[in-house]
């Protein structure tokens, strides 16, 4: 196992940067394009994970565990968020019988 982490010596940090950015924007496009609110929600998770990935990468490259701790926190928050968000989605579905975000047009004054 010891040789696996050696990878960080051969891969430039930039590549992680680009990877996580790509992931982030895939998530973002998903959020914009998809109409099913559950999928939108999942795309948000992808975006969160992209950020996590970047944090872990920078933690590894700087040799600082604090970045990984941040990831832990993000996971905690994400878990809380998902539970609440899904509860809201369920409620919405109960009331409106749909998960299409185009039909959620009550969000105005």
């Amino acid at each position: 196992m010891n040789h696996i982490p050696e990878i960080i010596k051969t891969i430039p940090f930039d590549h992680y940067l680009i990877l996580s950015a790509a992931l982030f924007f895939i998530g973002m496009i998903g959020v914009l394009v998809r109409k099913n609110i559950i999928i939108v929600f999942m795309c948000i998770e992808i975006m969160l994970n992209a950020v996590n990935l970047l944090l872990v990468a920078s933690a590894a490259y700087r040799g600082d565990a604090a970045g990984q701790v941040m990831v832990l926190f993000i996971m905690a928050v994400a878990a809380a968020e998902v539970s609440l968000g899904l509860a809201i989605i369920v409620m919405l579905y109960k009331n409106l019988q749909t998960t299409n975000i185009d039909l959620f047009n009550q969000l105005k004054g």
Partner: protein
Amino acid sequence: MEKLFYILSGLTLISAIMVILSKHPIRSILFLVLTFFLISAHYILLNAQFLALVNIVVYAGAIMVLFLFVVMFLNLNRDIERFKSWLPLAAAVISGSCVFLVFLSAYKSSHQIQIENSGGYQIGLVENLGEVLYRDYLFPMEISSVLFLVAMIGVMLLSRKEKTETVKNLLP
């Protein structure tokens, strides 16, 4: 060994794209699980062994089960997407890509980060991580427990049956 990284990266991107491309929600979820696994693999490459496990347990395990559960619960197996107009879709794609491009060009124009020390594989171990967590980040840790409590109560409150009026009646 670099190949491993590129293969993993490619797979991650492809499965992430598949998440948003597949029409069936269940398929999306499964691709998402795959994405999470691949990201966990990346974590291992990056000396974050403990996080890789937590990622699998929390994300691919707990959270995705929740998603699946909700999809089953709401019986959303059918496709509900109706592409009425392509205009917002195009706008979304274009603006998303624009942001990406902008991001990239911003990255190009910024100066490169120097790698200071590659640390070693110990930093990602439970022992090391726990030490940092409980020494430097004790207070946020405790606060996050409160967050969970709040989330728990919130969920209970939301899913409680309204006796007198439903949210629908409240809406104009």
